[in-house]
């Protein structure tokens, strides 16, 4: 029962499938594990009988559910049915929480994750959750004279648990100090929230407070504090978040994705907030994702929606990208990567607009660009890594520790858990967001690494720090990238750039070469999975993007010639007619914010030959938006650029 190997395949064989069936091989495997060899026909007979007995037990167990006046069939019900038919009950599955069901892709093997439990530790544990409320009866007049609802229907009772005075006081103190002015007090309160074992009853209230993010979207400071509160709650080992995870996630998602009122002012560093929220999201997901089924897909869906909505401001897009990045490279591969071509055109348009009025938008665009770059670089790296591990591990073999599974265990930020991944295949995800207009990852097929690299290279060109070459001889000395910061301008004119691209069209071999980078990128020295795990999610995606932009701006003006397009090679656009060498400038700037330490942006532009009329474009909205560009994308490739840059 635990191991249903190839169950899906066996079912597909039968034309009618009334029931789930335990395939013959499983029976044989189980028999083998008990030391019995079964012949074919015995196994067949036994299989049928096992299936029948299982169905019978399930049918019997349903009456225990009905009489317990529940809708959910529990393991306990099943065990009762077994016990009453004189069969040994199944132990160890009585937990209220749903058990994560994991597949191993290679072996087509599904199993219930069964972690080892240290009984001694459990027995001596002192962190037994307290504050579990006593069962009690409360009465209220629901309907007076058969009419009139005293309270709106269908809402959760205002007081599910009546709070004791102590709890009430605690609640007031904590919220006051967290949202108050004193940073020291806040720290103490957060620490206590992280370790207090008696606040289970207060959880709904705190969750409610946190859901107040929507009302303070103008105040970065408050948003930050609330996010810290989320973090403390999530880290509290005594709290069982249960379905509140959903509410917390939605609050955090709000901070990541929404065009916060605070971001209207460019001086506000809402980027850091988004980065932090994204980190928090991945943390919640990795530690509590099991509590809510389908959470992963819901998150992906909403991120993807934002990303594909051109009307959304760039900061929302940024949030979506860092969110995906935080959820791991598989999320990036599934959502961001397929969406990139469509999005790229829009982003390119913004980045190529050198008009004065566009400066702010452009700065934001660079932010997004940086975030995307970081995300896809990690995607490439991790994909290569996983391929190499697979190649070493042998085809079809179980992954070695340190392989895919190992990666997942040790560094949660890198790949999503296998559980949600298995869902699209099983068709579970489809009903999760039934009515949603198609999820792009439903019919998603993995793109081979070389193709992916090619495509990404066509977007990013040499900015892409990850390199692949065709062979060891080439790989040892990749011509351009070695010491090249991601956004460094290429020194070659356009024609050569094309050549360059063509030459580097990668043909991936088993021995790949990840070029070390010297730009201070966090994953630069990445050679082994253990290193990856060493760099935990403490590194935010933005920190690397910041560093990257900083490093590039540290050598301004180094760029002598070349078309601006080289920065963002656009394979899909017509190449400009070759002309006389044009100078372009890189201007580094500094965005000042209250808490930002030298967050910079930089932009390059070429002097336009005739300083013709600047396209007069006004933003109706204060926030930078891609979708609001007045001109068709095509024309941006040859538009006039302006030198004016408001700083």
């Amino acid at each position, binding site marked *: 029962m635990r191991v249903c190997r190839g169950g899906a395949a066996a079912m597909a064989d039968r034309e009618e499938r009334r029931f789930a069936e335990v395939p013959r091989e499983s029976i044989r495997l189980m028999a083998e594990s008990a030391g019995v060899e079964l012949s074919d026909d015995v196994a067949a007979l036994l299989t*049928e009988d096992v299936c*029948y007995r299982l169905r019978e037990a399930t049918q019997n167990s349903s009456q225990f559910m009905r*009489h*317990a006046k529940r809708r959910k069939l529990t393991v306990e019900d099943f065990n009762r049915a077994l016990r009453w038919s004189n069969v040994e009950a199944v132990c160890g599955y009585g937990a209220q929480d749903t058990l994560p069901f994991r597949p191993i892709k290679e072996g087509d093997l599904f199993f219930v994750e069964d972690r080892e439990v240290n009984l001694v530790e459990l027995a001596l544990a002192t962190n037994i959750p307290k504050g579990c409320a006593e069962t*009690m*009866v409360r009465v*209220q007049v629901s309907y007076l004279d*058969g009419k009139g609802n005293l309270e709106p229907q269908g809402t959760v*009772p205002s007081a599910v648990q009546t709070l004791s005075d102590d709890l009430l006081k605690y609640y007031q103190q904590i919220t006051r100090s967290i949202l108050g002015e004193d940073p020291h007090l806040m720290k103490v309160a957060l620490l206590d929230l992280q370790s207090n074992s008696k606040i289970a009853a207060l959880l709904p209230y705190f969750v409610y407070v946190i859901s107040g993010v929507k009302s303070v979207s103008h105040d970065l400071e408050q948003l930050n504090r609330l996010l810290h509160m989320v973090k403390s709650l999530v880290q509290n080992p005594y709290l069982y978040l249960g379905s509140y995870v959903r509410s917390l996630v939605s609050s955090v998602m709000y901070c990541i994705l929404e065009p916060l009122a605070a971001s209207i002012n460019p001086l506000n560093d809402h980027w850091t907030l988004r980065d932090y929220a994204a980190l928090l999201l991945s943390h919640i997901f990795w530690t509590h994702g099991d509590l809510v089924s389908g959470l992963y897909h819901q998150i992906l869906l909403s991120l993807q929606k934002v990303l594909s909505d051109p009307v959304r401001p760039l900061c929302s897009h940024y949030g979506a990208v860092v969110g995906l990045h935080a959820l791991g490279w598989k999320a990036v591969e599934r959502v961001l990567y397929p969406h990139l071509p469509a999005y790229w055109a829009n982003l390119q348009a913004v980045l190529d607009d050198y008009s004065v009025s566009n400066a702010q938008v452009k700065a934001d665009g660079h932010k997004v660009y940086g975030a995307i770059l970081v995300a896809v670089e990690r995607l490439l790296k991790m994909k290569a890594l996983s391929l190499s591990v697979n190649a070493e591990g042998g085809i079809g073999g179980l992954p070695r520790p340190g392989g895919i599974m190992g990666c997942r265990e040790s560094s949660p930020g890198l790949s999503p858990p296998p559980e949600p991944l298995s869902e699209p295949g099983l068709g579970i995800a489809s009903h999760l967001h039934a009515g949603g207009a198609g999820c792009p990852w439903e019919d998603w097929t993995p793109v081979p690494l070389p193709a992916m690299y090619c495509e990404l290279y066509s977007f990013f060109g040499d900015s892409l720090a990850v390199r692949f070459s065709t062979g060891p001889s080439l790989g040892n000395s990749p011509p351009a990238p070695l010491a090249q910061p991601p956004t460094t301008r290429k020194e070659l004119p356009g024609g050569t750039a094309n050549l360059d691209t063509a030459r580097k069209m990668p043909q991936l071999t088993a021995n790949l070469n990840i070029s070390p980078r010297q730009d201070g990128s966090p994953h630069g020295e990445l050679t082994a999975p253990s290193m990856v795990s060493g760099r935990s999610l403490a590194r935010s995606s933005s920190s690397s993007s910041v560093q990257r932009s900083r490093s590039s701006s540290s050598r301004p003006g180094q760029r002598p010639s070349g078309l601006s397009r080289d920065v963002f090679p656009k394979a899909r656009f017509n190449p400009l007619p070759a002309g006389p060498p044009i100078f372009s400038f890189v201007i580094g700037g500094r965005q000042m914010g209250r808490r930002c330490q030298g967050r910079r942006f930089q932009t390059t532009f070429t002097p336009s030959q005739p300083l013709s009329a600047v396209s007069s474009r006004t933003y109706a909205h204060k926030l930078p938006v891609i979708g609001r560009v007045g001109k068709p994308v095509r024309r941006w490739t040859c538009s006039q650029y302006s030198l004016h840059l408001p700083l």
Partner: protein
Amino acid sequence: MAAVQDAPVEADNEKEIKTETLNDAAGNHASAAGGVIPSPPVASTSSSGPAKAGGPGSEEQQTLMAVLQFLKKNNFVGAVDVLRREAGILEDSDESQGQELAASALGGAEAGDATCTLSRASSCTTSTPAVAAAPAKGGEDQPDVNVVLSAYSQQGDPALYQGYYSGLKKFVESVLDCHRAELSQLFYPLFVHMYLELVYNNHETEAKAFFEKFSGDQECYYQDDLRVLSGLTKKEHMKGNETLLDFRTSKFVLRISRDSYQLLKRHLQERQNNQIWNIIQEHLYIDIFDGMPRSKSQIDSMSGSLAGEAKREANKAKVFYGLLKEPEIDVPLDDEDEEGENEEGKPKKKKPKKDSMGSKSKKQDPNAPQQNRIPLPELKDSDKLDKIMYMKEATKRIRLGPESLPSICFYTFLNAYQGLTAVDFTDDSSLIAGGFADSTVRVWSVTPKKLRSVKSAADLNLIDKESDDVLERIMDEKSASESKILYGHSGPVYGVSFSPDRNYLLSCSEDGTVRLWSLQTFTCLVGYKGHNYPVWDTQFSPYGYYFISGGHDRVARLWATDHYQPLRMFAGHLADITCTQFHPNSNYVATGSADRTVRLWDILNGNCVRIFTGHKGPIHSLAFSPNGKYLASGATDGRVLLWDIGHGLMIGELKGHTDTVYSLKFSRDGEILASGSMDNTVRLWDSIKAFDDIETDDFTAATGHIHLPENSQELLLGTYMTKSTPVIHLHFTRRNLLLAAGAYNP
């Protein structure tokens, strides 16, 4: 040749189906003879049968008839004419010939029937046909179990089953509309039995194919059973399967009008469809009635149970549904009067002043059982006091109706963690008890008065027994608390019930016991062991002392609190007994079952006096109307059905709930029926209107065929949402305030 020997006796006994069997036999004979002639050995037995039973003359005639039949069938028109002329038989219709023949030679006809079955199963080796014929004719209630168990052993050609079934299907589709609905009833039982026969004889692939092909045709309310069936493809599996056992040991009852039945029979005879005919005779009980064929909706409203409809005679017994006479208690109008009068020792003066309460109780209800039909405990002083309280409260009762709906108070169990399984209120609404999945029973006081237990024996020795407030003194103040937990069961507690005097509490559990708890000491007094399987429900009698329990073992047991063994065992349900309820006069109990029937049992003699069919899912709630005339039942299909106990009729169907109805309650005066369900709603229904709308004229009373109003929505007075809390218990206070209870499911 058992049939032959039995036949005359049965023919005498049978009043109703007599002519039926005659026709039956004659027709069979005719067709049988047709089939017999080509195979000499069998033909010889068939002719030898009548030879023993009937006279030689009849035998000759019979043979002639058979030959004629055969010739006719094969279109030997000339030969038929010649034979007719020579034998001197008039040119009549086959049917009338058969009847004449049957009338003249009863025994021979019966034998012909037997030969029919014999010839049918030429490959059959057992002697079952004769036995099989017997129940069909005799309509015996108790089939020989051994015979039934081995019944499936006969072999037909498994490949032909599909043909048989689709042949019947075609026939039913081709008959007149008015008969089609009735004959369609046959499909399901035939389908099941043919399938089981295939499985039993190890024709697994044919069985599967058969199921695949025809399972889609069955009525949707049989889905649950079909699911069980579809899983069963091996003979070995049939052994332990309870559903199957039901199919095999009990006859599926169909009610079919005479006309439709004739049609069916003729068809089967013409087609020589003996496989089907055999199943009909062995496993089906066809209750034939005279009169109009029923419509589809009429049939649908009554079918759905595990074993078909109830036989008509099952609901013929007289039921004393009236209420018992209330004991005469002086009801003082108010407290001051009471004290004044009593002290002066002239309570009689009060009597003429007594209001309706007193006068009502004086008249003996003609439908009521004798006062001492069931011995009831005598009233104690405290009971009398309580009665007085009750009557006082009753005067303040709000009269409910469509215009004045009750207020609803909801008792929400918080932090029950999906563990609340049963709830009960005391009649005076002062206590509430909950049974939980963690084997505990908890009792709460819902009044400011806290729960106190009696002092320990040592402490009780110390108190002054002569003092006036001794009842107060025996209570232990230190133990006062809002709630008490009763530990004792070793499995989920599925039912709780307070005794009417509030001194005891019953609880039943998965561990197979019913426990009696004292609410004075909050300890367990007795564990009643009798059910060896989970006990799903238990209920105190409205007069105390007796209680009923029912569970997985399909037997309801009647207990008295001072006996450790049951007084009565009510057996007859084909599946778990899921809920139990006492009739207000304590002479009857109703049980609802997972076989989708409600049965009413007479406590006096243990007989089953009513079987109500019509639910399409296991029944989970029952409620008697306060006047004892009606019964309401709610099931997992979300429907509430109303029954007239006296006539044994379904009189209403209340549709609206979308999930299992776990609780039903009539208001104190019976004007309103409240239903609470898993779908988080309480619904109020106009029961007066529901009862009045049905005129039970003599015809419907005689046949049991009712036309339900199409739309029950006009009976629905209100739908009240809870806050994601399934409603598992309802209770009307003495002043008609509706209390509902359930556990909040976040």
